[in-house]
C-alpha cells in the first residue's frame, strides 16, 4: 500500500500547568509505558501508513525535534512547526492529550489534572499491551511483562498487571503490582512495595519503602493523590541508580588532577597574580572558590580544578555563582542551576562573558542548561584550547 496522506498533530502547550513535576521535556515527550506519548502517535502514523507527519509545537519544539531524530525510526518525514500559541496550528491537527484510539474525556486545566491524565495513560497503555503480537518484552504471566536483562529475586511477589523494563533488578521480598510500571535500569532494594505507581528510568528505591499512587524519578517523588512533589534528600531512600549522581566522570577528575599539577608553577608564579575568594554554589551546596585576577582563563581558574577533582565542578557547564547571584535569576533558571554542576568553562566564555556579573551571561547559561544533553558541550569541547588561552579584558 502506497503512503498517501499527512498526519497533522498538535503538541499541546501544557508547560504552564507543569508546576508540580517541572519536567525538562514538554508533555508529549513524557513517558507512557516504554515510550513517549509522541512515539505512540508516531506508531499510529505507521499504522495509518501516512507519508508525512507535521507536528505543531508551541512548547519546546527543539526538544521534540531532537527526540524524533528526523523520524528515521518510523521511516516518516517529520516536520516540526514551532508556533507561538495553540490557535496557530492547523484546524484539523489532532491534539495530543490522549493515546491513539482513546480520546480524553476531561480537559486538562490544572497541574493536578495534568498529572492525573499522565498517570491514567500508564494504566491504559498497560491494559492495551496484550493486543501486541510481537514484543521485545517477555509476557511471564498474562499482563505481566519482563524486559530484556531484567532480574527478579525468586522471593519477590509479582502481581499483574505490571511491566518491568530492561536491565532492572527487583530485590528479595518485593511486592510489585498491580499496575506497576518500572522503567529500564531501575534498582529496587529488599522489601519494596510498588502498587499503582510508576518508577522512571535509572531510579533506586531503598529498602523497606512503599510507593502507592506515585511516580519516582531520581530523588524526586511525585504524589499523584495529593498532587505534590517531594525531593528526598537521603539517597538510600530514593535516588538515582547511578554510582556517581550528577558528578564528573572519573576521567574528567583525572584530567583535572593532571592539569592542576602541571599548571601549578605557572598559575602561582604568574606576574602580579592575586586570588579572590567567593563562596559559590555547587548544585545546592556552598563551596569556596578562588579565582585569579591575571593571565589566561586556564590559569585564573586553576584552583577550580581542585573543586573538579572533588566532584563539585565539571569541565563544561554554566559558570559558578554565589547564592545572591542565583537568587537574582528567574525562578525556573535558578532551579535548573541548582540541579546541575557548574563548569570550569562555559558557553558564556565562548561568547565573551567570563563571569556571572556580566549582564548577558545568564542568557548564555540558560542556553547551555537547556541543551545540557551535550550538544553545546560538544561545540565547546572543540573550542576548549582557544577558550583556555583567552585573556579576559580587565574591568574598566
Amino acid at each position, binding site marked *: 500500500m502506497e503512503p498517501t496522506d499527512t498526519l497533522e498533530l498538535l503538541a499541546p502547550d501544557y508547560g504552564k500547568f507543569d508546576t508540580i513535576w517541572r519536567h525538562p521535556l514538554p508533555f508529549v515527550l513524557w513517558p507512557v509505558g516504554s515510550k513517549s506519548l509522541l512515539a505512540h502517535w508516531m506508531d499510529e502514523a505507521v*499504522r495509518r501508513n501516512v507519508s508525512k507527519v507535521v507536528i505543531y509545537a508551541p512548547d519546546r519544539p527543539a526538544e521534540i525535534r531532537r527526540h524524533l531524530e528526523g523520524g528515521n*525510526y518510523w521511516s516518516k518525514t517529520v516536520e516540526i512547526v514551532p508556533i507561538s500559541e495553540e490557535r496557530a496550528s492547523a484546524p484539523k491537527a489532532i491534539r495530543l492529550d490522549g493515546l491513539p484510539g482513546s480520546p480524553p474525556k476531561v480537559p486538562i486545566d490544572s497541574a493536578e489534572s495534568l498529572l492525573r491524565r499522565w498517570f491514567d495513560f500508564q494504566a491504559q497503555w498497560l491494559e492495551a499491551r496484550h493486543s501486541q503480537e510481537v514484543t521485545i518484552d517477555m509476557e511471564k504471566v498474562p499482563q505481566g511483562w519482563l524486559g530484556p536483562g531484567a532480574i527478579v529475586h525468586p522471593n519477590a511477589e509479582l502481581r499483574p498487571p505490571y511491566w518491568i523494563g530492561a536491565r532492572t533488578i527487583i530485590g528479595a521480598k518485593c511486592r510489585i503490582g498491580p499496575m506497576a510500571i518500572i522503567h529500564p535500569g531501575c534498582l529496587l532494594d529488599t522489601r519494596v512495595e510498588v502498587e499503582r505507581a510508576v518508577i522512571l528510568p535509572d531510579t*533506586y528505591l531503598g529498602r*523497606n519503602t512503599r510507593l502507592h499512587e506515585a511516580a519516582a524519578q531520581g530523588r524526586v517523588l511525585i504524589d499523584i493523590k495529593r498532587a505534590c512533589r517531594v525531593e528526598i534528600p537521603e539517597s*538510600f531512600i530514593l535516588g538515582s541508580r547511578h554510582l556517581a549522581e550528577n558528578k564528573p566522570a572519573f576521567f574528567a577528575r583525572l584530567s583535572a588532577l593532571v592539569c592542576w599539577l602541571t599548571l601549578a608553577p605557572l598559575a602561582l608564579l604568574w606576574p602580579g597574580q592575586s586570588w579572590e575568594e567567593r563562596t559559590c554554589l555547587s548544585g545546592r551546596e556552598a563551596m569556596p572558590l578562588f579565582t585569579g585576577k591575571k593571565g589566561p582563563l586556564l590559569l585564573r581558574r586553576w584552583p577550580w580544578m581542585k573543586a573538579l577533582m572533588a566532584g563539585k565542578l565539571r569541565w563544561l557547564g554554566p559558570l559558578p555563582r554565589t547564592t545572591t547571584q542565583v537568587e537574582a535569576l528567574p525562578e525556573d533558571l535558578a532551579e535548573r542551576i541548582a540541579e546541575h554542576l557548574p563548569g570550569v568553562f562555559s558557553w558564556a566564555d565562548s561568547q565573551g562573558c567570563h563571569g556571572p556579573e556580566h549582564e548577558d551571561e545568564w542568557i548564555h547559561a540558560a542556553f547551555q542548561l537547556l541543551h545540557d544533553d551535550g550538544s553545546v558541550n560538544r561545540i565547546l569541547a572543540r573550542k576548549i584550547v582557544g577558550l583556555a588561552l583567552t585573556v579576559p579584558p580587565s574591568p574598566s
Partner: protein
Amino acid sequence: MNLSPEDEEIAAYWSHASTARGRFQIRVRLAVKRFAWQAVVGGSATLKRILDVLASGAALLMLSPVFLVVAILIKKEDGGSIFFGQPRVGYRGRLFRMWKFRSMVPNADALKAKLLAENEMQGGITFKMKNDPRVTRIGRFIRKYSIDELPQFWNVFRGEMSLVGPRPPVPKEVAEYDVESRQRLMAKPGLTCFWQVGGRSNIDFAGQVRLDLAYIRSESLWLDIVLLLKTVPAVLLGQGAF
C-alpha cells in the same frame, strides 16, 4: 500493640537508619548495590563494546592481506570501485553507511527494478535471488564465503555496528515494516545473529523478525560469543548464502 515479625524488622531498620552509624552502613550497602548493578547488568554493554573494538581491530589487521587480494581482483574484473557503501538503518533508526566489497556490476541498482518480479524472498520486503545476473564472477565467490562482508569490521570498529546483532536493513525495507517489526531496530545491528547461524537467507521475513526479537530479549556477552563461534562453520560451509 503486637507487631508482626516483618513489621518489627521494618521498624528496626528505620530506627537503625535514624542514627549516624546506621546511615553510614546503609550508604555503604547502597554503594555496593549500585556497583553490583553496574557489574552484573550495566557492565555487559561496556564489555560488548570492548569485545567489538578488540575483535574488529584485530580482524582488520589480520585480514589486511585478504583485503588487498580481493581489492586487486575486483579492480581487475571490471575496473569499477572496490568498496560499496550502502545506507542502512541502524540502532533506533539512525542511518549509516555500511561497507562491503563490491560484488555486483556498477549499475546494479538500476537493474534491480527490472528484476523485482523474480524476487525469491518470501514476504516480499527483502530482495534476494539465487542466480542474480547482476553478481560479478569474483562477486559470486566472495558472496558465497561472505568475504564481501569483511569491510563491515570497519563499521563495527566505528561503533555503528556490533559483531552480533540483527542485520541492518536498507531504508526502503524499513519503510515497509509494521510497528512490531520496527522493534528489531532497538538493538545495534551486527554482522551475525540467530538467523544467519540458523539458515541465513532461507528464513522468511516474519521468521527473521521473530529471531531478531528473540536475540534482543536474551542478549548477553556469552550468547554473543556462542553465536560468533557458530557463525564460523556457517560461513565456511556457505550455508544459505547467495
